[in-house]
């Protein structure tokens, strides 16, 4: 990082960055330069197709969405593509592998892309922000940057599914952790000076898109996560995934109504914790005002 600007990545923010997951995008953009990560936004990025694009649009049109993003990324240079959203990562990484390995598929995607005067023939790598922090930045660098340790904050590290499944512990997925018992999130928490509580549902499922479509089918899944956080006496739940953050936060009222509980547990992004621990601005950098269940304890620690 001798040039003082850090390593450059093509940053794919994804649709939630302009809506429900704004605070992930804002806090990540704030902490990245502090960690020697330069984010150059992917020009004219489009939706990744998420969990349902193939149903609405068909297999090839859905893959063409990823093809277009990669073709545009290729125009920006050979640097790795970085995304912080679990679904964007899964789709873009899986799509990239498929296009690269399946020659027939590569031909079909490029035939579709040619209708928009684009092509994708490079060997780009698609990487998750957490994996980049673990492998390129290193936990020690995170620790070194902490000026405002979150001493006494108890954090339940909720990783969720698609950040680590199915690609953690694969060569293309960065080989940074396991898919059943990942440790990176607790490492982030502890690097920030907070306490990572025992939380054995860290890779349980929040219901994903099914929670958005038919929450009545999945409230019990979210309740399990909240139960475990409560049992561990956590002050906040931290997660890397925008859909997990929204689902686990927004359905607490519905769960309280359905099960007679009284949950009001703040759900934050690891990047928000880092921004606070780096002594950055509570509103502009850590985006704490974007949580619908606010953590008084974390806000008091923030500058």
């Amino acid at each position, binding site marked *: 990082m001798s040039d003082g600007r850090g390593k450059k990545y093509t940053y794919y923010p994804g649709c939630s960055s302009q809506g429900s997951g704004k605070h992930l995008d804002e806090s990540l953009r704030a902490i990245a330069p502090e960690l020697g990560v330069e984010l150059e936004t992917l020009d004219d990025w489009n939706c990744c197709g998420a*969990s349902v694009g*193939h149903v609405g649009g068909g297999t090839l*049109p859905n893959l*063409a969405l990823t093809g277009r993003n990669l073709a545009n990324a290729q125009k920006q240079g050979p640097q790795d593509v970085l995304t912080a959203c679990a679904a964007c990562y899964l789709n873009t990484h899986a799509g990239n592998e498929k296009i690269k390995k399946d020659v027939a598929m590569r031909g079909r995607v490029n035939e579709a892309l*040619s209708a928009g005067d684009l092509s994708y023939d490079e060997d780009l790598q698609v990487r998750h922000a957490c994996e980049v922090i673990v492998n390129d930045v290193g936990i020690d660098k995170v620790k070194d940057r902490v000026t405002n340790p979150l001493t006494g904050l108890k954090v339940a590290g909720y990783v969720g599914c698609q950040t680590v499944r199915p690609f953690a512990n694969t060569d293309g997925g960065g080989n940074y952790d396991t898919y059943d018992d990942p440790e990176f999130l607790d490492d982030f928490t502890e690097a920030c000076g907070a306490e990572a509580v025992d939380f054995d549902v860290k890779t349980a499922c929040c219901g994903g898109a099914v929670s958005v479509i038919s929450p009545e089918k999945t409230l019990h899944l979210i309740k399990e996560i909240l139960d475990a956080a409560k049992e561990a006496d956590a002050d906040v739940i931290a997660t890397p995934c925008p859909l997990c953050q929204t689902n686990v936060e927004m359905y607490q009222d519905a769960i309280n109504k359905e099960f007679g509980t009284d949950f009001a547990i703040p759900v934050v992004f690891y990047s928000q914790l880092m921004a606070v621990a780096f002594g950055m601005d509570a509103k502009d950098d850590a985006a704490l005002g974007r949580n619908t269940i606010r953590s008084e304890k974390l806000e008091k620690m923030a500058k």
Partner: protein
Amino acid sequence: MAQSAPDTARKYDLGFARWVYENVEGGDKLSMCMQCGVCSGSCPIGTEMDHGPRKLFMMIRAGMKEAVLTSNTLWNCTKCYRCVVRCPRGVPVTYILGGLGTKAVEMGYVKTEDTVRFSKAFWWSAKTFGRTDERLVTSRYHFSGGFGEGVKKSLANLKIALGMFKAGRLHLGAPHKVKGTKNLQAILAKAQEIEERAGETER
């Protein structure tokens, strides 16, 4: 899990497993399945499914085409990928369920399932704007089952929407768009044309 009694009137399509092998994403790995049930045992939402993935895969082998393609298993998968990483035989379970769902919609087996209605609303946004407008996708989905249901579902979500609005996470105003909507739409139209062309040679 709902158990169904054997139906002697059910039609069996003995070529179905081969069709899945040739046409469904991941279907070529289905022959690896040894019916151990790790997938169904790992599934967080198996209780909502007509059949767990293990049983569904056996039904494919038995040629129960209609029962497979109309099963709600295809729509209740949350895409947690636990079955994929745990399968001792490397069967890409989640991908196969997704691929079967895509085919079931294309072939007209499913129209009113919530996930299908949501997926159509989602794709409309992706195709029109190049991005997901959470507000428009949600309301389009809520009203896709009729006005009454739309009002009911919207009211049920009012408090959530209000909270998101206060936190600045509910986008109001014109939808965010890609700059090249025409460019994106041309690519998607071409992709669809290629897929239809491929579909015709299959038949």
